[in-house]
């Protein structure tokens, strides 16, 4: 999956350009995000999910892995613009209690 990183006031905003985050994409996604975190020394990560129409348990697992990496460095990850399918799976396994979500990138970035 192609990722587009942009810096907004010390918050690294990454837009996921793919339509799905499933078992075929999750490993590469996780590695790419970890590389971005390392390269930019990013501690505040914001993921823009507005293109993602489907996520499975493996995609959710990759988000938990990213959260762990950032938390261990005193950082955090937040998510914006989740589609209906993504939001319902997210809530099903209680991830909304671990990762804060927002309706827009602007709203989320200012929350850091």
């Amino acid at each position: 999956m192609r990722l587009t990183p942009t810096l907004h006031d010390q918050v690294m905003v990454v837009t996921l350009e793919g339509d799905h985050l499933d078992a075929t994409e999750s490993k590469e996604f996780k590695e790419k995000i970890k590389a971005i975190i390392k390269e930019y020394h990013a501690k505040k990560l914001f993921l823009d999910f507005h293109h993602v129409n489907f996520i499975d348990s493996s995609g959710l697992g990759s988000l938990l892995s990213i959260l762990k990496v950032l938390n261990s460095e005193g950082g955090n990850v937040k998510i914006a613009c989740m589609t209906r399918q993504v939001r319902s799976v997210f809530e099903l396994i209680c991830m909304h209690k671990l990762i804060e979500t927002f309706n827009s990138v602007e709203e989320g970035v200012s929350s850091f």
Partner: protein
Amino acid sequence: MEWKSESASKIDRFFTSNLSQLNLLRYFVAEVCQQVPGDKETFTEILQLALNEIFCNISSHAYNNKKDQPILIRVKYQQEGIEFEVLDQGEPFDLYALPIPNFSGKTEGGFGLYIVRKTVDRLEYIPKNGQGTWNHMIIYKQFVR
């Protein structure tokens, strides 16, 4: 358009255990659900996710990541919902011994079959009975009205 009755069509579709088939699998489920009554979008999303999780579980665990093993999906249209039977020849497992996943963020896996269990109306598993036979996982989802 009239909904297909129980006596109407059944569909069999073969896949291989390669995860690259996931997209195709989700298209197949969308095709199967095309004419369902009620909230088609929710119904389709739930079944796409459930079948996706079952497929990944078979590929990773039953077939230990081998990519060329057979997975057969059998669709049975019923009066008030759809039944999917997923068959594989891999290593069987005990569905009823699966632990409840950890939701604290400490573990990154173990959610797949939990999601299936939480989203469908019926889930059954019949392990294979000897070499060359099939494991059967059966899910049933009632239409979302």
